[in-house]
């Protein structure tokens, strides 16, 4: 994987393409190993994305968000 996927759905779509290709049994050894490597990186990316929304719900109010932004700007 040369670059980070645009989104979770893009990563999953590519991952499913890879699995389909591998399941077809048509990939040669080199391609298989490259696809597996790319697939593992995509799984790592997707897992990180899921982890990012699994660490506990954070609730902000709009005015708090604005205050936070003001504080960080100052």
């Amino acid at each position, binding site marked *: 994987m040369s670059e980070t996927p645009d989104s979770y759905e893009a990563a999953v779509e590519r991952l499913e393409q890879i699995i389909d290709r591998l*399941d077809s049994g048509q990939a040669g050894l080199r391609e298989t190993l490259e696809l597996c490597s790319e697939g593992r990186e995509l799984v790592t990316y997707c897992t990180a994305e899921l982890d990012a929304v699994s660490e506990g*719900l954070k609730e902000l109010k*709009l005015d708090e968000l604005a205050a936070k932004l003001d504080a960080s700007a100052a």
Partner: protein
Amino acid sequence: MGLPGPFPVGRYARKLQEELRRRARVQLVGEVTGVSRSKVQAYFELRDPEGAVPCAIWLDDLEKAGLPEGGLRDGAEVVIAGGPDYYPGGGQASPSFAFRATHVRLAGEGDLLARLEALRKQLQGEGLFALQKQLRRPVLPKTIGVVTAEGGAARRDLLAGLERRGWAGTVVWGFAPVQDRRAAPAITGAIQDLAARPEVEAIVVTRGGGSLADLWAFCDETLCRTVAMLRVPVVAAVGHERDSTLIDDVAAVACSTPTHAAEAAVPLDCVGARAALGAHTASLGRAAGGAVRGRIPHLVALARGPARALRRERLGLNQKTREIRAASERGVAERLGFQRRLATVVLERARNRAAGPDMDRRRAALRRAEVALRAHQPERTLERGYALVEDGAGEPVTDAAAARAAAHVTLRFADGRVGAQIEEDDERDA
């Protein structure tokens, strides 16, 4: 100036009053704002997004209308009947214009639906229903904005829905009143503020069920135009399934409940997604392992290839040698057989020729020739008493000159040879 007049203004004012009162009586529908009362009249403005008319109603008429307590209040949707009127004022009183309402009632579902339908057609005609639906909705947003009432049940239901999704990202609340005349502008403002935050990937607008009048803020034209033009997808969950507000039409997704809105805002079931990732990881492991293991036999076969190729070649050569030998032997045998067959045919033909019908005739001719031949043999002549004269070389001497020349001859009789000397006897010759 070339115009009629000048007329006394008071007379003109009364004329204006008469003319306005002659205008047709009609019904108007709109939202009540700015309610005030004197001892005898109530005043208010009736407005909608396109304009407003100042109205007045005698308290007697208002009582006859039988509105519920506080029915004529700011934000109420009402239908009034009456016509335009003009108060010319007086020496001390100011003139004023008003729509003189003689009847008033709260707007019913039908009135609101008619207005809603007209507005719906207008916005749809402008293509505003399609814009939000063309936006990409992230399946796993990290931050979502929510516009709802702070104390409403919709808030609790939405959180429960998110929890069921296994989603625990960041929610930015844009609390706003959801049911009075302040609602539409407040909701519009909150949506705009949330959409301005780059980290907000989707916005949910939600409130519980109610009458169409209760939900009327969500049919506000300004609010709906604002939503339609946003670049952030809006998920609307206003009222219950049977309620259809205008924000449902312009939003990216319309849901029947806050729980469904949670699923639309976070399309990915995080729990299921983790399980799917685990399955994908296992597939990748199997594919990588299988790709190597599956090729080992082939590689081993390749490593053994040269020896096997030699053995195969040797076997091939041996086989060819045997074939050549067999072919050679077969060739000799075939040639022998051919010659034998040929000899047989020749002999057969010879035998046939020999044993043919001409044989007896030929044999008889042969015997005749033999007899004829024997008749000419010298021996036969000698047997009859003749003698054969031969010279010294054994050649026959057949005349006298040769006999003289030979001088010495041999006389051959049937029973043997006798030498003789030639002597000349001239007398006898004479």
